[in-house]
């Protein structure tokens, strides 16, 4: 049995299992920890698909940055409250599960029709895709900066916009005091006995 097959069959159940664990975990912190496991297995799939650069980026960005941000916000909001199981809309939950299964089955048949189970990845992916360059990172950067240079610059602008937007959204804005509030404060000061 070749190595990539073994790695796939070891990590695919872990990936699906951690995703389902996230789905059924009522505590938000535990759900986030299950999601970290899932992100690591996805990084390993990137590795066996011949994308070592994305493997590193997946671990640094998702497991490192995004999940820490999630955990930080969960801790900030407080973790003591668990979700209630009372349904606001009757029958919404079973319907959602049926719809999810429907999507899975539909995608399964689409993959069977479109790709088929006989298609395998080429053995010489590294040589062909990297075009004789040193490694995946160099080849990827050449594609990125030659063919996708404009989208790359647009994403940098997007990141700056997101950073500024978050600063505006998350800051506790100093509210302008209305004239009525000012008058009330003055009244209170005048009526209060001086200690």
């Amino acid at each position, binding site marked *: 049995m070749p190595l990539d097959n073994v790695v796939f069959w070891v990590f695919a159940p872990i990936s699906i299992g951690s995703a389902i664990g996230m789905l059924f975990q009522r505590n938000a912190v535990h759900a986030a920890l299950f999601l970290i496991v899932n992100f690591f297995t996805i990084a390993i799939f990137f590795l066996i698909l011949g994308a070592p650069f994305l493997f590193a980026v997946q671990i640094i960005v998702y497991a490192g940055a995004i999940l820490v941000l999630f955990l930080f916000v969960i801790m900030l909001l407080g973790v003591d409250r668990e979700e209630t199981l009372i349904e606001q809309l009757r029958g919404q939950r079973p319907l959602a599960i049926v719809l999810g299964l429907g999507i899975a089955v539909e995608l399964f048949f689409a993959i069977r029709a479109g790709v088929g189970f006989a298609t395998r990845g080429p053995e010489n992916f590294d040589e062909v895709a990297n075009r004789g360059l040193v490694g995946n990172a160099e080849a990827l950067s050449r594609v990125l900066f030659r063919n996708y240079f404009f989208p790359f610059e647009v994403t940098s602008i997007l*990141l700056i916009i997101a950073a500024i937007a978050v600063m505006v959204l998350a800051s506790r804005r100093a509210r302008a005091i209305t004239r009525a509030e000012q008058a009330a404060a003055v009244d209170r000061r005048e009526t209060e006995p001086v200690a």
Partner: protein
Amino acid sequence: MRTPIAYFLILSAALFAIGTVGVLVRRNALVIFMSVELQLNAVNVALVAFSRMHNELDGQVLAFFSMVVAAAEVVVGLAIILNVYRRRHSAIVDDVSLLRG
């Protein structure tokens, strides 16, 4: 590479479906957000698998862009959830029903 590409695609489809169910079933806004992240990751797996199948690196570049956009989206979304929490003292989406008809 002996594993058929379709296996990776089916795994990606399964993760995407689980993420969809999570978005529809869960009530906590943070967990809904995590499910959206799961869906994005599932699509990334499919992109990298197609990149392998066609012997080109464009799929990997696209997955890279989707990661960058996901990072920006998470940051803004969490700030919005934080703001909603400050106003309503709850991150449960059922409590934010001001626009309900």
